[in-house]
């Protein structure tokens, strides 16, 4: 069941976080939401595994 990796997987998590923040900086909210939507789709395709995607959705939904 646990196909989703939740242990640290990025060599430099701070840099990754910074890249995401910078991508959104200065964008009005609707454009930011649109950017996130495109990012989610791109990353979902890259992962290429519906089970992982569903686990990720479940994790995101229960941690709000």
């Amino acid at each position, binding site marked *: 069941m646990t196909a989703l990796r939740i242990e640290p997987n990025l060599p430099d998590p701070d840099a990754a976080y910074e890249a995401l923040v910078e991508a959104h900086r200065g964008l009005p909210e*609707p454009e930011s*939401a*649109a950017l996130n*939507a*495109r990012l*989610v*789709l*791109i990353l979902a*395709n890259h992962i290429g595994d519906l089970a992982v995607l569903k686990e990720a959705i479940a994790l995101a939904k229960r941690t709000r």
Partner: protein
Amino acid sequence: MGERKSVYQFGYRRSADQDSKSPLRHPVVIVGAGPVGLTAAIDLAQRGIASVVLDDADRIGEGSRAICFSKRTLEIMDRLGLGDRLVGKGVTWKVGKVFLGEHQVYSFDLLPESGHRMPAFINLQQYYLEGYLVERATELPLIDLRWRNRVTAVEQQKEFARLTIETPEGEYQLDAGWCLACDGARSKVRDCLGLKFEGHTFEERFLIADVKMSAEYPTERWFWFDPPFHSGQSALLHRQPDNVWRIDLQLGPDSDPDEEKKPERVLPRLRRMLGERKFELEWVSVYRFNCARLRKFVHGRVIFAGDSAHQVSPFGARGANSGIQDAENLVWKLALVLQGQAPQSLLDSYDLERGQAADENIGHSTRSTDFIAPRTVPERTLRNAVLQLAPHAPFARRMVNSGRLSVASEYASTLSTPDREAFAGSARLGLPVPDAPMADRNGKACFLLQYLSDDFELLYVKDGARPNVPEGLRLTVIGEDLIDREGAFAARFDATPGSAFLLRPDHHLCARMRHYDGARVSEALARAKGGSK
């Protein structure tokens, strides 16, 4: 607009049954002379079974309604004697294009492979299909077609259903050994039995218009998201015969259906789309739709098929096509039961297989609708993200959903014998077999599907002598009766010498083996007829 003008007119005729003191019994009574009911009646007649077909109208009205008929439907119609006529009159197409604004984001080809007798799709006004079916039904003495016979009550008995029927000359009753309810989305039979659809209605309204014009557009399905001529909504353009074009415009959930049907509203909308071209409005309607089904299609002696059993959105052409496939699935089984060659429980497999098909159709149709008409702002954001990515990333093109077009269902069925050996190729257990270009014994070119019978059939790839197949099974030897002239059969069936493929009367593959084995074939045949083995 409003009332539909008639394209074909038929007459009410008194039946001798109406003079009977007590209700007469017929083995099969079909309610509804639409595409589904008539397909069932013709297929039954070709199998030697008589039926009475009741319809509350006495004409076929204008308005195209269903326009896209799939390869699978055409293959069924070919078996019923109408394939060439439909393809001859229809507009053949296989390419669809999707636009975002003015730019193309995606295109698809529904039949990239050659060597099939039937095209991927034709477009044809539903009234032509119905007209041809009525003509074919009239040729067959086993079909008793009764116009202006309206069913008003249905009473289930143990071995029949008693129907009360209203005619211009008063009421009469009939007892149906089996009653096939092919009476459409607002099925009276369904109401009489107190059965309810399960599913939901979509709020979104759409305008559907058929216009007559000479236009230079190619014979392709064109779908727009957010077109310049219909901002923020979707639009569809599709060609039919006689220079008639189907246009579908999304209107939003708050539109007023009566207002939107008025020519003063419709014409400016169409002019924005069609520009300076001259056109005439043939038919217009505003619709909403359900994605819903009956939980079970077989209720005692009443069997539901087509829109009376399930409904979908129009995106994907899954309405009429699935109804016709219901009829074909049901008829050979009912014929075997009536002829005493199969147990009544064989009909459970109709419910199972066409229930699977209905779920699949509802699933696709719901997903398409969610994509075309997002219900919330975040849903729209996600949908637009797919469209924005599509020109740049192939994966997103595959997500663009303007309707996934009807293809045959692959049944996970109790009638199939699981494979023991691995097979590649496009032939799959539970699917109708693929067509292939062949030659007959005399070297004359033909197609596989043209050659197949209406009964159980074994395709055996020559490897020495002809096998002695079980009684009642038609044997076709590939390499003797039929020649695989281009090697397409071998590729599509992954056929090697000695291999054998068992086909049901509806041409769905129900068993296969690398080396013919009489005992395995007998067992598979018994299973496919609903036997216990």
